[in-house]
């Protein structure tokens, strides 16, 4: 379009974009996981690789969702339709409740279902199918039927400009549902391991993938098949003074906050990636809480009834006499996720560092 050239020319004569008030900067620095030799991949490559292996090793496996056929809007399924055919990798009609119900049915027959919900913000039409059906199939049928071979992949979280409906982290809604597994990777290596573990796990799983990591997170990912343990938290940095708990993108903010705390406050923080939201690793958390006596939990989702509430309640029940200060939550505020106010909404490194300083001076 010739016109676009003209528009481009005139626009360039306006303010340089670096001076723009809405210029979006990433709110975190990525801390890669190191696990020996592998191929350099970002998170969407690693997810693609995991699904490729699953489709290759398990001839029953099906992969579907909105726009999955051409590679998905985040490119996670790119080339898989060409490789495995359009009967196994395909677009669904635009209907999340349909995707979820269809996936459950597929899994009822023992076939592996890998279902993509395009954005976590759009998972709610499928809430009934996931909460009332997928989660309860085994229980209500006396184990006659189940849909354990089902995994939902769900891009979630803040990206800098997603506003109300392209930013949410709805893990807590699903954590309130017995029967589901809910996990959140912090990067490519974990994403691949968790996905392959979920595909094989005999329970319906939801993998919330922080979409800001699809491109930003780069690691050397082992190319062979491997799984990451479900229900197991990772201690990423050891320390004796304060325990910092997070998942997904927030892990990287906590790692940076821990570094800043070391430099500025001379304290050693222990950083734990919870990884699994449901069921979750109570042992690793209470062990660390007992060691440090000070715990901060941070997540992007709102404060009230965020998963931090559950962790805080558990810690006060199990570790009360070991605590030096009340458990602190640093989270998104109790508002919808706003567009231009995002820098003020997120539990960024400054808010986390302030919390560390406060919890030490309680």
């Amino acid at each position, binding site marked *: 379009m010739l016109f676009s050239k003209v528009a481009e020319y*005139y626009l360039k004569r*306006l303010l340089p974009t670096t001076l723009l*008030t809405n210029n979006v900067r990433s709110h975190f620095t990525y801390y890669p996981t190191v696990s020996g030799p592998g191929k350099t991949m970002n998170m969407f490559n690693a997810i693609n690789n995991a699904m490729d292996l699953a489709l290759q090793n398990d001839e029953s496996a099906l992969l579907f969702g909105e726009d999955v056929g051409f590679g998905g809007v985040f490119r996670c399924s790119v080339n898989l339709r060409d490789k495995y055919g359009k009967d196994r990798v395909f677009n669904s*009609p635009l209907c999340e409740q349909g995707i979820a119900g269809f996936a459950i049915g597929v899994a009822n027959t023992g076939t592996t279902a890998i279902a993509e919900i395009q954005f976590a913000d759009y998972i709610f039409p499928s809430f009934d199918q996931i909460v009332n059906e997928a989660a309860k199939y085994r229980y209500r049928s006396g184990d006659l039927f189940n849909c354990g071979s089902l995994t939902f992949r769900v891009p979630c979280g803040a990206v800098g400009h997603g*506003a109300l409906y392209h930013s949410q982290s709805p893990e807590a809604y699903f954590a309130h549902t017995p029967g589901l597994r809910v996990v959140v990777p912090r990067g490519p290596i974990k994403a691949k391991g968790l996905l392959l573990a979920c595909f094989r796990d005999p329970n319906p799983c939801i993998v919330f993938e922080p979409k800001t990591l699809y491109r930003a997170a780069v690691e050397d990912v082992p190319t062979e098949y491997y799984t990451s343990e479900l229900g197991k938290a990772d201690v990423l940095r050891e320390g004796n003074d304060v325990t910092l708990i997070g998942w997904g993108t927030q892990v990287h903010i906590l790692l940076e906050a821990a570094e800043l705390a070391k430099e500025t406050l001379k304290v050693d923080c222990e950083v734990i990636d919870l990884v699994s939201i449901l069921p979750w690793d109570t042992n690793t958390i209470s062990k660390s809480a007992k060691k440090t006596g000070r715990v901060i939990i941070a997540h992007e989702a709102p404060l009230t009834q965020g998963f931090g509430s559950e962790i805080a309640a558990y810690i006060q029940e199990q570790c009360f006499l070991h605590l030096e200060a009340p458990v602190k939550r640093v989270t998104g*505020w109790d*508002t919808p996720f706003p567009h231009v106010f995002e820098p003020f909404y997120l539990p960024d490194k400054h808010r986390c560092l302030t919390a560390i300083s406060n919890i030490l001076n309680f």
Partner: protein
Amino acid sequence: MSFLRKTIPMLGALGRQHQHLKTVVGALPTSSRQYSSDPANDYANFPGAKAPFVSQLKLNLPEDYAPIPIYRVMDRDGFIADETQDPQLSREVVEKMFRDMLLLNTMDKILYESQRQGRISFYMTNFGEEASHIGSAAALEMRDLIYGQYREAGVLVWRGFRIDQFIDQCYGNVDDLGRGKQMPVHYGSRELNFVTISSPLSTQMPQAVGAAYAMKMKKGNDACVVCYFGEGAASEGDAHAAFNFAATLGCPVILFCRNNGFAISTPSHEQYKGDGIAGRGPMGYGIATIRVDGTDVFAVYNAMKMAREYVLKENKPVVFEALAYRVSHHSTSDDSTAYRSPEEIEVWNSVDNPISKLKRYMVHKGWFDEAEETAFIKDVRKKVLKQIAVSEKKLKPNWREMFEGVYAEMPEHLVEQRKELEKHLEAHKEHYPLKNFKQ
């Protein structure tokens, strides 16, 4: 043999039931002999369906039904095929239609580029669908309430949403009517009776139906509701709910499907197998249905006039399907050449372009002036660029507004959270873009 043995007593039971029906419904044939010899004359009276009985077993195949025809007024060259269908709009109205389409098209091109340069965070263009916006909006009254999906900016242009209002929304600055809460293109205007856009698809559909029902219940109602949605969105459960509620509850709503052939990358042939969205109307939901060429502004206009008259007179819904082609990428997050060819797009951008079609009509009428068109586009371009410069310098709303509008009145816990943030910002102001926000 065993089948027969079972069948004989069953037939007896059927006969007894039939005898019973005879006494209840006098109009039914008087003897079971007649009934069995000529079932085709018999009309079933099941609560779930009234239809004739037949004795030939037959699968009703989709191909047994002819597609609903597509109404058009203008051909590709801008000639009116049947003069009786010329809406006889004045030169003034046609010129407004043309100018509004040009304005939308010009603004879209610049705002699209501005996103590419990182000036705004997101944008969605309306290329190829200008006629369905303008034609439908022109046939409505301002009191008619609009629920949009997200690609209906032309309806707002027709209603008088100003360039500064569009661009301030895209920047989410202090003058954005939505107060910086939503992504670009999520417009809304109380004044123009246009309900604020929400990103989740089809959620607006049952809402529009509910609004129409409530409006019907108001004394002397003379306004209807128009709900725009795409053919992809029509696959959502909410779309079914909307169709069914609108029909069963008799709601004066026009369910306007912009069938542009694509839901992001998914082509319509992977979205449904029936006769488009129109095909669902009459047989599927019992709703009066119109299908039009969405690239023909007059076809959309005429059909919308008829639809509006019908929904208000009958207090019943209309399914309206406007067929076009999404010349645009889905949004600035999408490159549609990954799933369709540039050549295919170009056909729809030139031969079947709704703006050039109207232009050709105006040429035949002697109403078109090339110099005037060029000057108009130049003027719009100037205004849009000037407005971008102004809008991007405006401050964003006060950050405290983040906590407003969650509830009608701010509850205590939000007051506390706002205080906490206030204290934090006071201590760490150097880390936050406070200078870009109103104080």
